[in-house]
């Protein structure tokens, strides 16, 4: 399979609706990041790699998929660099270029299963999502404890009327599919 061309700074800035040039590496984004302790590369370092044109390197970091999208970095940036948007762009590029860190596969499978669910139904059908995600993730890692992990929650949710086997769908599902197609998704 032919890979798309190597991503550039312009790709990141276009996808992120952000300019990375303004960053002067104060590190405030990383100081406030709730996931910094778990990351292999800190948010300010990712932005630096992007500034240097090393998108190939940045999008391979595990940190890209460890980010919880809380927007703390963008909110606190003294130069208004949309760091959370840069991370979004790196996530999108890492999937498009099949370059995501291998340990982050489950999170990517989950996000993809979520979007597939919306494409089919227009609204999220939670149990369908959990079922498909767990099956797909299990075939990736054959991890039985992870497969079974939330099984005990099901009866408790049922007791509270929070378990909907099917869930809702929108009437105009054709429209939802056309929106996805037009977004090349």
């Amino acid at each position, binding site marked *: 399979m032919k890979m798309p061309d190597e991503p550039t700074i312009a790709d990141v800035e276009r*996808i*992120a*609706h952000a300019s990375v040039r303004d960053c002067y590496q104060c590190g405030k984004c990383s100081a406030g990041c*709730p*996931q910094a302790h*778990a990351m292999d590369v800190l948010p300010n370092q990712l932005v630096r790699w992007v500034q240097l044109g090393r998108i190939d390197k940045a999008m391979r970091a595990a940190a890209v998929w460890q980010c*919880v*999208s*809380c*927007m*703390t970095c*963008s*909110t*606190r940036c003294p130069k208004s660099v949309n760091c959370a948007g840069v991370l*979004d*762009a790196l*996530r*999108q590029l890492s*999937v498009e270029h099949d370059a995501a860190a291998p340990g982050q596969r*489950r*999170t990517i*499978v*989950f*996000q*993809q299963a*979520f*979007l597939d669910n*919306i494409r089919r139904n*227009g*609204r*999220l*059908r*939670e149990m369908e*999502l*959990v079922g498909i*995600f767990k099956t797909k993730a299990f075939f990736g890692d054959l991890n039985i404890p992870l497969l079974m*992990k*939330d099984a005990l*929650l099901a009866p*408790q*949710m049922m007791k*509270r*009327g*929070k*378990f*909907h086997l099917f*869930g*809702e769908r*929108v*009437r*105009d599902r054709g*429209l*939802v599919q*056309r*929106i*996805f197609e*037009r*977004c*090349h*998704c």
Partner: protein
Amino acid sequence: MEIGYYPGCALHGSSNDYESSVRACLSALGVSLRELDDWICCGATAAHCLNQKLAVALPARNLALAERDGLPQMLAPCPMCSMELIKAGSLLAQDAELRREISEIVELPVSGSTQILNLIQIFQKIGAARIKEAAVHSLEAFCPACYYGCLLTRPPENLRFDDCEQPSSMETLLRELGAQPVDWNFKTECCGAGMTIAHEETVLDLSNKILSNAAAHGANCIVVACPMCQVNLDMKQAAINARHGTAHDLVVYYLSDLVGLALGLDQQALGIDRHFVVRK
């Protein structure tokens, strides 16, 4: 007062207690909600992680429906939904070319003019004085840690109802109703949000810090205005205790639960009986 209403998938799914709470509470305050017809999912984290165009188009379809149906203001009680709607609306409002492109994609003209409101903003709109007047019970037994979570006050350039670093709007309202909110440190720290299913450890670790800090500052409950915060702190509280050897026992109320209790509504009508951690 009639206002547009975008429930979002969580409130029509496992967070249906939040929807009961919002509806019961606002109805008691004379606010009628007009639900957006055939609304679609905002795309949430999945869309903005994987496809930025979709992350604008999905919320934009809902904004287009609101414009078509004459709803200048719309309540989105889930901060994930409200943030996605606000981000898309603000991008559209600034960029004529994007408006043209997205209008074609979503098959309706969209300008991004709809004002999106969260639950706190609705209460501010009604006014603390009016809510206090309608209240029949004092909330004096409640010492809540008001937890805003990561998204409720962000992005700050679009949301000016409160301070994004030191928010106090929930405290202001609840104090009026007799509650004694505590001062604490984790008001806007993230609970792990949508990682609940994909990477639970992240949620258990981040949420444990929030519960621990709230308890250390003397809180006897937590108040949230987000379905993901509620699920992570409430439904996952037993798993947090198991992983960290803690003994957290904090009820996690929605803001509308406490306002509703002050208004004399019962726990069942507010959906409080559907929480996992309940008051003994």
